């Protein structure tokens, strides 16, 4: 730090970098001083979540895989969560952050129950709450690395399907998909809705199964084991894990690359 000046150099005051000064000061202590960083990367991740809103109700689907980078590490995780009788949410992205959100939502449901008036938060309320939380975290440069799909109904019983991003992007749509699903499944879901706008819950489930099959073909981080959740007037439930039939006969003819 001490400047050894040549005799013919001008000694002018120069800007002092405080960070450098402090780092220099603490150098011998073996610690480095730097501003607090939130270097983020998702660790255990879930892939696409798909949702379709029909006039009868909302259908949401996600596979049961928690990937650890390129390793298919946890093959039996629940990425769909029933918050209460009016809402199911699906989580894409970091699974630890999703578990954190699930814990908060579970507590909220308990709080609603404790009040005892029979009114529980509906899907739009949960969607809005998630948007506030996620946007707030991104503003503090410490995001919850998730994209959440909120499937449910509002107080009037009308089906509701919402999407919230890790940067706080939030919207409501008839068809919603996260991650790879937005490139591969969303075109298929949109086409199905355009061709058959009055489809029912069973038809929507069939569309989602087709989408999940194509995702299994084309998304490296997917698994052929998924759950489908339904929120309709009659039921709010998440199915047991199931698989789609796949056809690998294309690979039967040996072809090579030329």
């Amino acid at each position, binding site marked *: 730090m001490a400047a050894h000046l040549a005799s013919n150099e001008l000694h002018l005051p120069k800007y002092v970098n405080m960070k450098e000064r402090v780092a220099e000061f603490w150098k011998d202590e073996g610690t480095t001083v730097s501003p607090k960083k939130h270097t983020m990367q998702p660790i255990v991740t879930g892939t696409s979540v798909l949702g379709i809103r029909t006039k009868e109700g909302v259908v949401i689907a996600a596979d049961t895989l928690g990937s650890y980078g390129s390793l298919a590490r946890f093959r039996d995780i629940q990425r769909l969560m029933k918050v209460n009788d009016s809402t199911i949410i699906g989580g894409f992205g970091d699974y630890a952050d999703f578990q954190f959100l699930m814990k908060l939502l579970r507590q909220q449901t308990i709080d609603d129950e404790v009040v005892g008036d029979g009114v529980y938060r509906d899907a739009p309320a949960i969607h809005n709450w998630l948007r506030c939380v996620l946007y707030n975290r991104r503003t503090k440069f410490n995001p919850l690395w998730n994209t959440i799909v909120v499937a449910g109904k509002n107080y009037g019983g009308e089906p509701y399907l919402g999407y919230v991003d890790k940067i706080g992007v939030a919207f409501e749509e008839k068809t919603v998909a996260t991650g790879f699903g937005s*490139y591969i499944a*969303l*075109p*298929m879901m949109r086409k199905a809705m355009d061709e058959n706008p009055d489809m029912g819950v069973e038809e929507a489930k069939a569309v989602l199964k087709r989408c999940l099959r*194509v995702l299994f073909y*084309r998304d490296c981080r997917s698994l052929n084991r998924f759950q489908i959740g339904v929120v309709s007037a009659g039921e709010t439930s998440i199915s047991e894990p199931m698989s789609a039939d796949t056809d690998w006969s294309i690979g039967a003819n040996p072809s*090579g*690359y*030329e």
Partner: protein
Amino acid sequence: SNFIIKQWYQRRVVITAGGFSFDNCRRNAFMEKQGITFPTARKTGTTICGVIYKDGVVLGADTRATGGSIVCDLNCEKIHYIADNIYCCGAGTAADTEFTTRMVSSKMELLKLRTGREGRVISALRMLKQYLFRYQGYISAALVLGGVDVTGPALYTVYPHGSTDKLPYVTMGSGSLAAMSVFEDRYKLNMEEEEAKALVCDAIKAGIINDLGSGSNVDITVIRKGEVEVFRPYQVVCQKSQRQGDYTFPRGTTVVTNTTEMVPFSALQVTDEEVMEL
């Protein structure tokens, strides 16, 4: 003698050197640091695809060419002629796909004259991949090559770095995932021609509707043994809408407050003239 051999080798190397000269890279990096922005290459930001059906190959493409986020060309042709029985769809930088396919088309014609036989798709494939590999991916041409030759129908993809795939159905470009979702859902071996055309059209439409880099119309080329059918366009997806209002004002809208007579130029008289010496 060592020196002479080295000189000979160096001269040989200089003569046969191909590829790009990277001399300007340092200059470009300096300019970039100065804050000078470079013009963007015109990309085709595309959806292209191909399927093999019972009698041959169906190739499809959209028709939008983009430069950044501006649509440069609403109706460009992305299915290029290679030979009478071989066509190639191109995605990536428009200039690269155009010139690469034209170069290979010339070479195929020369080969046809040399051998006296109809060209094979595999020959075009070899030429394309050996050319693109030599340029290490700097020629940004992602191609879907299809045709019917003596060995039957053939469909390949060529990536900018020079790798190739041989598959019954392929998609390339920014809309490739949307198109591939359609194929993975509905492709069957040995389809009929109408079925194959409908499938390719749906795949390109999925790209046109869901991908921002693709748009306008669906072009289709059907290649069978002995004949080729070009549909340009096969289907118009994005049609310019009719203007709702009429913006022409009727005569007399502007109130005339006063008129002055226009003096004709011929009535002007030159009063003073000064010619300057150069």
